[in-house]
Structure formats: C-alpha cells, structure tokens
C-alpha cells in the first residue's frame, strides 16, 4: 500500500482526506486505483485521453517519476506518491484583450494624458491599453532611433528596449534630436532614456548596452512584440532580419542616405523579409554610410516617424500595414513612391524551403571585418607614418579621393584631389612606379581606389588607414573633423 498525498484543493473529492492509501504495484496502478476509488478526482488529474494533465507532475517520495520509470515506477509499502503541479509564468506575453483578461488598465492620469488618442474611435481605451501592454525594441539610438524613442514614448508604448553601445558625438547632434549638446560623450542609451522618461515617467525602458550579435540577438529580441530597425550597417540589418524571421516578430525597417529614405515592414506573417529584397549584401564600401556619404539632418526624422507610425498601427491592429510595399521618399523632389515587394518563395530565410535556420556570421557574410584590424597590413600606412614621410621629405604623391565639397571642409596640405569617380580617367597623370598614398575621410573609399590603382599596374600604393579623421586625431588636431 502506497500513500497518496492529496493537495488541498483536491480534498473535496476525497472526502476531505489529506492522504489516501491505495494498493498497486506501480505508480500508474496506484493512481488508477485512487481515481477509481474517487471518480471525481479523475478529471482533475487526467485529460479526456486518460493522460496526465500537462500541469501535473507525479513524485514518488522525492523523485519525479519522469526521471524514474514513469507510470511503471514500482511503488512499495510506505512510499508516498505526491501530485505536484508544474507552475510557471510571467508577464512575458501580454494576454489577448478580452473580458477574462483585463489588459493593462489605464490610470486616471493616463486617461487624461492620452485623451487625444482615446477620443479617436480607432484607438479608444482598448487601443491605448494595447499600446501600454506593448513591448517594442529599438535597434539603435541614432538618427532613426531618436524620433522613434521620443514619439513612441509619448504615444504611450509601455515598454521600450534600446540596443546601443555608442556614445553621443558632436556630429550626431545635426539629426539625433533625442541627444543634446550637453550629452556629448555620454552613452546614447543614458541620454535617450533620460529624455524618454522625462516625457513619460511610467515608461519602462530596458537598456541593452551591447552590439547586437548572432550570439545575443535571439535572447534580446525574444521578449519584445516587435522590432524597429534603426541601424546603418549591413551586417546588423541582415542579423535583425534573420532573427525576426526566426522568432516570427515583425521588423519595422527604415534606411536613409543623403536626401532619400526607405521604409517597409519585414518578417510580417505572409510578407517578405529583407532577404527577399536583397538576397546578398552589396560589396563592402559600395554603399556609403551616413558618416561616409552624409545625410540631411531632417531625413531620419521623416523616416523614423514613418517607422513609428507603422509600429503603432501594428500594435493597434488598424489601417493597412506597410507590408509588401517599399516606401521610397525623395526629400529633394518631395515625393513618395511605392515599390511592390513580393515574398520570394526561394528565399533562403523565409521561403518555402529555408536553407538558413539559425543566425550566421554576418560580418563575414557582408565581407566586413568584425573589428578594424589593429596591425597595419601591407599596402596600408598610418597617419603618423605618413607624417614622418612628409618630415623626411620623401618623394611621393598623396591622392585625396574625396569629393570637392569635402576637400573644402578640410584637407591635408600637399594632397592632390581626385574624386574616386574621376580616378579611372585621370590615372594617366601618375607614374606607375611612383610612391603613392591614397586617403579619403575614413579609409573606405581610398581602399577601393588603392585596389583600382594596383589593378592598373601601380606598384607602390598605400592606403591611409582611418583617413583624414585619423590624421586629425594623430597628427594635426587643427584639421576639422566632419
């Protein structure tokens, strides 16, 4: 005879007994005997198919029978069989709105704060509660992240996570309006969180002070309802896309360059993903970043707010989401256009037979070294070494492959300006045996120029690592940085 210990709530079915002795050679027989003796107990422990209910664990003395012989575990006299529910939970997933689950209720203050939302029939109390219960992750607290952070906070999103590991630089202030002059040198996360909490002190901000990587992306993204991509580099863009597809979370995408921007929603159920649009990244250096190519300071405001609008619409479940449509914005022409995006059935990520089923090495995929190599390679020269070359009076040519408007901002005395695009037609100006150093702003364009010159038969070509920015840092601080 084994003793079955009855949990309090079930004693109503056992005539108030807190323990019942039941005969049986195995735990399975004991439980059968118990529920034969007390039929009302059966439904509590077993489902309609006669299997133990998912929340019921059975213990023999102090051991879970799953780790013994399950229901065939022998039960001897004096053994105690216990029914222990498995219990877990957490706020992780907000409940579907419904009468049984009153979602995030609004306080009196919130009703007043969001009154201009509440009187829109499409939003109303229910919509505002959805916004309050929503968890949104911003990848990047830069140009796009700035308007996103401010407006999503003001709109009443309850929980906003931000991934960023950068500090505020004075060159950010032209467009990243969430940061102020006094924040220069501070972590963007701290600066952004402070502004957001000033707008809404009840906001929950989670700061993820890290670069998003293949190792941490799924772990960071999994707790959010949707992800807003405000990154400016291809490795992270593919990473965010792939992680969103794997987790089934919409990716509200935006990108900016000079006077033009794009926005769409990727990884929405049934919709395309970033890889449907661009299965392969462009060759490194072909598409300049904002730091390389510049950006109209207002542009990320426009694009970021399109992303914010789509985010709020998705949460509220209203309107027509920007899925399967790539919105193109041209600030100079002041025109919006739309391209149709189709889900690619052959897409390696979200197609019918995906070949990518986990996160990969995105730096390698995009041909970008994960970290700028510290040691100087052959064919490269550092700023101080270049200075020594000048000081020694070496005979060499310094070619600046930037654009004329950049040259006017600053230049290295003695350099010859030949914009990258003009290099092929002016290559005849130099002796293929000459000692040549090429520079640009940060070293990307000049690296391509070096490759071109070497292919054209030039033997002594070196790239100034870090460009004129490194020159300003290491040699001549009077050269302004931009």
């Amino acid at each position, binding site marked *: 005879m084994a003793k079955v210990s009855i*949990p*309090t709530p079930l004693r109503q079915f056992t005539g108030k007994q807190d323990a019942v002795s039941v005969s049986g050679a195995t735990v399975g027989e004991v439980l059968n005997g118990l529920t034969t003796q007390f039929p009302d107990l059966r439904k509590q422990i077993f489902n309609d198919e006669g299997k133990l209910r998912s929340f019921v664990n059975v213990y023999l003395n102090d051991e879970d029978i799953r780790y013994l012989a399950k229901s065939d575990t022998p039960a001897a006299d004096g053994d105690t069989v216990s029914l222990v529910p498995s219990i877990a939970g*957490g*706020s*992780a997933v*907000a409940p579907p709105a419904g009468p049984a689950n*009153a979602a995030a*209720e609004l306080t009196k203050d919130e009703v007043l704060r969001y009154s201009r939302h509440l009187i829109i029939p499409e939003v109303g109390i229910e919509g505002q509660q959805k916004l309050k219960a929503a968890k949104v992750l911003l990848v990047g607290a830069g140009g796009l992240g700035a308007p996103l952070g401010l407006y999503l906070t003001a709109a009443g999103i309850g929980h906003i996570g931000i991934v960023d590991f950068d500090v505020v630089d004075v060159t950010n202030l032209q467009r990243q309006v969430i940061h102020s002059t006094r924040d220069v040198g501070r972590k963007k996360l701290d600066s952004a969180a402070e502004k957001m909490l000033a707008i809404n002190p009840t906001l929950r901000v989670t700061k993820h002070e890290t670069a998003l990587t293949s190792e941490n992306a799924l772990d960071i993204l999994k*707790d959010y309802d949707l992800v807003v991509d405000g990154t400016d580099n291809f490795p992270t863009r593919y990473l965010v896309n792939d992680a969103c597809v794997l987790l089934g979370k919409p990716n509200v995408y935006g990108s900016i360059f000079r006077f033009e921007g794009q926005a769409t929603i990727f990884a929405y159920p049934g919709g395309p993903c970033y890889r449907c649009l661009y299965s392969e990244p462009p060759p490194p250096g072909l598409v300049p970043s904002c730091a390389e190519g510049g950006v109209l300071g207002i542009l990320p405001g426009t694009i970021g707010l399109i992303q914010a609008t789509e985010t709020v619409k998705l949460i509220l479940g209203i309107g027509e989401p920007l899925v399967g449509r790539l919105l193109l914005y041209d600030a100079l022409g002041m025109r919006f256009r739309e391209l149709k995006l189709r889900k690619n059935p052959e897409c390696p990520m979200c197609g019918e037979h995906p070949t990518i089923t986990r996160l990969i090495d995105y730096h390698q995929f995009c041909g970008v070294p994960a970290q700028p190599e510290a040691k100087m390679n052959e064919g490269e020269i550092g700023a101080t070494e270049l200075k020594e070359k000048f000081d020694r009076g070496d005979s060499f040519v310094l070619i600046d492959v930037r654009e004329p408007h950049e040259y006017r901002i600053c230049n290295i005395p003695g350099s010859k300006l030949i914009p990258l695009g003009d290099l092929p037609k002016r290559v005849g100006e130099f002796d293929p045996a000459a000692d040549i150093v090429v520079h640009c702003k940060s070293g990307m364009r000049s690296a391509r120029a070096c490759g071109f010159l070497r292919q054209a038969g030039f033997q002594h070509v070196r790239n100034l690592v870090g460009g004129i920015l490194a020159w300003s840092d290491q040699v001549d601080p009077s050269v302004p940085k931009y």
Partner: protein
Amino acid sequence: MIHIEAEPWAVMAAHAREAYPNECCGAMLGSVEGDAKLVRAALRLENAFEGAQAARYELRPEDLLAADRAAREQKMDLIGIYHSHPDCDAYFSKTDLQNSCPWYSFVVLSIRNGEFHHANSWLPNFDQTEAAKEELTY
C-alpha cells in the same frame, strides 16, 4: 474570494520589491472555507527560471512539494501561488495561463519602479485558456 492577512501580505510585497526588476514567486498557505480562502502565511520560493527573470518565473515542483509539507506541518493548506509583474499590470498573461494549474489561486503583484502598485487574484481553468478574476482583499 481570497483574503490575505497583514503579515503574509507584507512578506509578499517585500519579496516582490526585493526581486525587482525581476519577478518573484512564492506559495500562500492558509485555510479554505467553501469559497472563502484565508492566507495566513506566505512562503518565499526561488524563481527557478533559467534565463532573464524580468518577465518570467518558474517554480520547482520540489519546492512546491516542500511548501505543501510545510503547510501540513503547520496545520495549514497550500492554497495559492503568488508572483510579481515588474513594471506592468497584474494581469494573467498568456505565459501565466499556459503554465498554470486550476487547483490554486494565483495572486499577481504589479510592481512599478520598484514599488507595489496593485494586485489581482486569478483562477485559471482546466484547459489553461482563461482565468477568472477572484475577489482579493488584503
């Protein structure tokens, strides 16, 4: 309906505050008279969820078994489970529902910015698809 006496209530609220920004969990011991439940003691249990605990908790069945034994020793019953929701309301989430058990009352404490905000008690159904709100006093 469920009433939590002052002493266990203080234990639960303090536990939730201390665990912030993570979730805490524990057991409620007391007695049941018909539909009326009285919580006379609260037992802190360890949040055994492996991973970020800001929005998740998990109870070890062994701990629950021990809590049940402790209740019996003190001539009380294990009548409910409590846990906290940091920086969000005391709703019964989908995660809560899918990992619940209809035998107990589930008290959820909402903690905002480290301070107690409000609490609700829930009675999940067998199919783990719905939870009814239970009248809670403390």
